[in-house]
């Protein structure tokens, strides 16, 4: 048999393989920057929605107009948008090639927006004395916490059955002073923990049926 091996075959294979990985890395980077732009744009849109909501609420307050159903509806949509952003950022984060700091900035913006939405929701609930919708604050942990994952599924299931329920998720491990205040306020010591309609705190996993029995 003909012996065809030459050293340059190994070198060529290595160089082509290296080039392919470089190309994959470059394309990954391109998509990564698009993900960041997309994530940022989603947050910006929701920020504008929040600002618009605040302006509308101030307008109603100044001109003594009370339109609680409209505010409820807008608040509901805001909550849904935030949920979508949360899911998107989590998916992007697992595909990320960029410096983690860039994603942490996005996450920070997102959590702050959630906190703002939570505060606004409380204001509306107090001023409208509305009992038609529910807000659940969900403190979770991402580090191999199956219990947090299960709680997430139970909350997803709950939202599927009850459209008037907003879930705002907070990563207990994320370093953000405003979130620390929230955790301190509710004395969050473990994950998962949920806070139902600003008051009822439940530590550990709770099924969607049990949540329903607590909020009705």
């Amino acid at each position, binding site marked *: *048999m003909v012996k065809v091996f030459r050293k340059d*075959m190994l070198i*060529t294979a290595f160089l082509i*393989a290296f080039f392919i990985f470089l190309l994959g890395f470059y394309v990954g980077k391109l998509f990564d920057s698009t993900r960041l732009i997309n994530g940022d744009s989603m947050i910006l849109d929701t920020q504008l929605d929040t600002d618009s909501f605040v302006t509308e609420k101030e307008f109603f307050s100044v001109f003594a107009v009370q339109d609680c159903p409209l505010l409820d509806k807008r608040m509901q949509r805001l909550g849904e948008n935030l949920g979508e952003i949360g899911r998107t950022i989590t998916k992007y984060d697992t*595909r990320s090639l960029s410096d983690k700091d860039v994603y942490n900035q996005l996450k920070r913006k997102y959590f702050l927006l959630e906190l703002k939405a939570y505060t606004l929701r409380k204001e509306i609930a107090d001023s409208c004395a509305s009992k038609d919708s529910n807000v659940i604050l969900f403190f979770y942990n991402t580090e191999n916490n199956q219990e947090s*994952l299960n709680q997430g599924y139970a909350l*997803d299931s709950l939202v599927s059955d009850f459209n008037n329920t907003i879930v705002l998720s907070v990563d207990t491990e994320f370093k953000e002073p405003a979130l620390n205040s929230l955790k301190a306020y509710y004395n969050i010591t473990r994950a998962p923990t949920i806070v139902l309609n600003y008051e009822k705190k439940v530590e550990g996993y709770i099924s969607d049926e049990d949540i329903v029995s607590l909020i009705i």
Partner: protein
Amino acid sequence: MAFLSVFVSLFWVIVNSALSQHEKKRVVLKNYPLVTVAIPAWNEERSIIFTLNCILKLDYPSDKLEIIVVDDKSKDNTALVTKNFISKHRKIKLLRHAVNKGKAGAMNTALKYSHGEFFWVYDADSYASRGLLKSLVERFYAEGSEKVGAVVAITLIKNQGTWVEKMQRLEYVMTAFMRKLTGSTDTLHTTNALSLFRTEIIKEVGGFDEGNLTEDFEIAMRLRFKGYGVVMCENGNFYTRVPDKIGKMWNQRVRWFRGFIYNILKYKKMAFNKNFGLLGLFQIPLEIFVLLSLFISIALFGYHVIGALINFLSMIYIMGYNFFDYFTLPTFNQFLLEFNWRLLFPSIVVLCSALYLYIEAHRYVGEKWKFYIPSLLYLFVYPLFRSIQWVHAASLEFLRAKKKW
């Protein structure tokens, strides 16, 4: 691991394309040398006559064939059936073991009484194409080197009825092709059921290793270790019978893999040793690395699969019917952005290279290439089983479990 897969598959594509630019040389001999055909037989009363007839019909000068059947203390009538047959064919010798010594033992007995320049091991469950022996002998002369210890033939599958057999068909086609590629880079280090050996060299290196689970692999490693070549013969092939049931196939593969682990450790000095050229510096380290990576991958895969399974079952249990709402088809934009692009390029290259080698392998053995369910099972499901077989084999070897043939 992904980089290594891309690198190795590209390397073989380059080797194959370089090889296809060379024309095959064939040496035709005026006088063929004496060849001893050794048939180790254990409980072969049903196949031995067919095997002997196949040998007698070979396209090889009959006066240049010395046929030795070694009955390895069969429990059936192998010896009697053979005795009756050889009463009409005087040139066939029958040697009988008083105790069962295994295949390597039977081959060593035949080797002791052989007079041929070449020694041809002929498994009783295989049969050669008529021109194979000539091709194997010619291959020794074409190489033009006294340092070639063995010539390996292309193995194909005789029985292709069940899906287990069909699945192995593809494996044998790919193996034959990979042997061609390793042969062309001087890294071939295995022999098989119908390999031809130079008698003098086999005697010099001490014969076949009795008690070894894969004596065909061991003798090739020993030949390479002692500085002798192992080359591939591209003309002619032989057919072998493969296990028809998954259980039998499992036991056979575990035995092979145990043999591989044992022998690679036995000849570990060859790894990273420049005296063995590309075999020592590339092929053996690559095989060791792949083996180690396989065990690590299985551990990681098991961990992730178990985790994902627990997660999935929890999801179904918790969400009930709402489980279906959880999954929505992504938009094109979402798909683009959420896709793992880092793995796409290497995966495409590995898949394209595999497809190219798959087609080339079929061209090489002269069979039509086709995709059917057993092929898909072999490509996408069997690797998982093979990984578990490797773990099974490694654990048996580690525990020094009793060897079973």
